[in-house]
């Protein structure tokens, strides 16, 4: 019996309440529970419980050695009113995410669109060139060599050769340079999952729509993009946005690897670094949980906002 007719029959039966029907369904589908059990158990242990636990611990003072003491909102008050470095980190995180998120999203979409009409072989090669930096692990350390602090760094060598500067610039230890450079490196590694998703989405657009569009008076490729392509790949746009936003908050590792920890004058200090500092170095677990909760809310909030905006595409 198919699931739909089963449900219809069950609902039609007057002798069974919804509760009883649910219980019966649970019993009938025990295999399904068995199949999701291992995954859900691990997912709960390492994703759901940690989030819930962070929220609980954020209201306490806890150092892993003694029992946690409930302190109410003290951690939150300290974070926003008493922690200048957190505010600086929040500002940096915001700048980082507001530039890298949209820029990488638009870059992924545009490149995917540009290469869509190339022949499959060339498209595969171009895809590899753009996608490779995001999967090659720590290859971004090469930027440390290119912009190294001495004359053997490529940037310094050429700037000096052409007489633009007299002395080497200590790029990754100079408060004026770290943010822009880290943003460039982050962008370089950011054509990841959303990029692949856009390529696939574009290939799935029904070609007959282009013909219909041409008849309806679409004049150039930009109109085609806005009126035909984007509305047909909305689900990919949504998924790509989530991937881009989430990773735009996760570039802390690049900053640490290139600039050290903490970065000079905290110039590229992000909320993620602040969390790491209190969580895994000072072991102020209560306070670090507060930071984690804020970061969590910011990410979810950003995603919700962008989802709202994207639902307006092509309307």
């Amino acid at each position, binding site marked *: 019996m198919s699931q739909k007719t089963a449900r219809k029959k069950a609902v039609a039966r007057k002798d069974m309440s919804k509760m009883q029907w649910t219980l019966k369904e649970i019993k009938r589908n025990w295999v399904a529970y068995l199949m999701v059990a291992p995954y859900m158990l691990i997912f709960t242990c390492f994703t759901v419980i940690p989030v819930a636990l962070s929220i609980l611990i954020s209201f306490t003072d806890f150092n892993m050695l003694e029992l946690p003491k409930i302190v109410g909102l003290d951690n939150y008050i300290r974070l926003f009113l008493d922690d200048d470095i957190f505010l600086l980190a929040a500002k940096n995180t915001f700048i980082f995410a507001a530039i890298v998120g949209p820029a990488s999203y638009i870059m992924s979409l545009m490149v995917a669109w540009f290469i869509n009409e190339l022949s499959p072989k060339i498209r595969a090669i171009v895809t590899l060139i753009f996608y490779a930096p995001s999967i090659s692990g720590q290859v971004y350390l090469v930027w440390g060599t290119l912009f190294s602090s001495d004359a053997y760094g490529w940037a310094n060598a050429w700037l000096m050769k052409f007489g633009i500067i007299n002395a080497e610039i200590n790029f990754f230890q100079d408060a004026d340079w770290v943010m822009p450079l880290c943003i460039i490196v982050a962008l370089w590694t950011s054509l990841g999952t959303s990029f692949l998703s856009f390529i696939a989405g574009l290939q799935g657009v029904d070609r007959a729509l282009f013909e219909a569009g041409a008849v309806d008076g679409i004049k150039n490729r930009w109109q085609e993009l806005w009126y035909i392509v984007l509305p047909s790949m909305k689900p990919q746009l949504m998924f790509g946005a*989530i991937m881009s936003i989430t990773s735009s908050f*996760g570039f802390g590792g690049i900053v640490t690897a290139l600039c050290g920890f903490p970065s000079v004058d905290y110039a590229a200090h992000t909320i993620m670094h602040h*969390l790491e500092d209190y969580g895994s170095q000072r072991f102020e677990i209560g306070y670090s949980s507060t930071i984690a909760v804020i970061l969590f809310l910011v990410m979810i909030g950003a995603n919700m906002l962008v989802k709202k905006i994207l639902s307006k595409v092509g309307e």
Partner: protein
Amino acid sequence: MAKLRTRKHKVVLARSVGGDMGITVMLTILGIFMFLPMYYVVIQSFKPLDELWMFPPRFYVSKPTFKNYTDLFSLMDTSVVPFTRYIFNTVFTSVAGTFGNLFLSSLAAYAMAKIKFPGGRGMFKLVRTSLMFHQTVTAVTSFILMSAFQIIDTYWAIIIPAWATSLGLYLMKQFMDTHVNDSVLESARLDGASELKTFWVIAMPMVKPAWLTLIIYSFQDLWNRGASIYIHSEELKSFNYAIQQITAGGIKRAGASAAATVIMMMVPILVFVISQSNIIETMGSSGMKD
């Protein structure tokens, strides 16, 4: 006017020459920006010492040498833990984590996509929501839980969490939704096949592109893991961590560190080259409807 022919219908769409050229120029500039740093690492790894120290640095190599690669191994001979141990650690955790993830995620994805049971949709929504935040949020509290399970400083601390990634389950479930035909499953069930058998014999062979995608995602994530807060013992640390130690040795080791980076990056790139078309196919169903 450049022309684009649609596949079924012979309609000519407007494509301005200026636009074509503009796009080509843009793509070329962006392509150079993406490609040059990768190319530079490869070139560095083949430079002999005197070319590494040249001013200004060159983007080509006159006398290529494998010395940096051999140096890498002799450098690692002097470390406390044998070099091969780091490689083993990374390969072992990557393989064990990836296959566990493939099996558990597919199993759960199949149940969520193809069996309607109370709570199934809710579970999937929960997993989908977790795509919206980065793992660092849960790093510290995960540490507490791992201490409770007493798996800190063992391979399990890396492997077990990798068995249940949200992206893996999400992509697999979406792909099964669109690529596994319900009526085929239905007839297998009518023939008396158990749900587990239907999953393994009928559904799994139909979603091979999604396997490959899950494998490359999971594998490159684990392969690229550096130092972890869950691992203290030197003999359990990753290959990537060992490379960071070499790079930290400074400019004198520029060649060896470039060689190490090349070795590290070749693996995920090769895996991607082999499975690219399958990954793109999987991404075709990655979209999010609501």
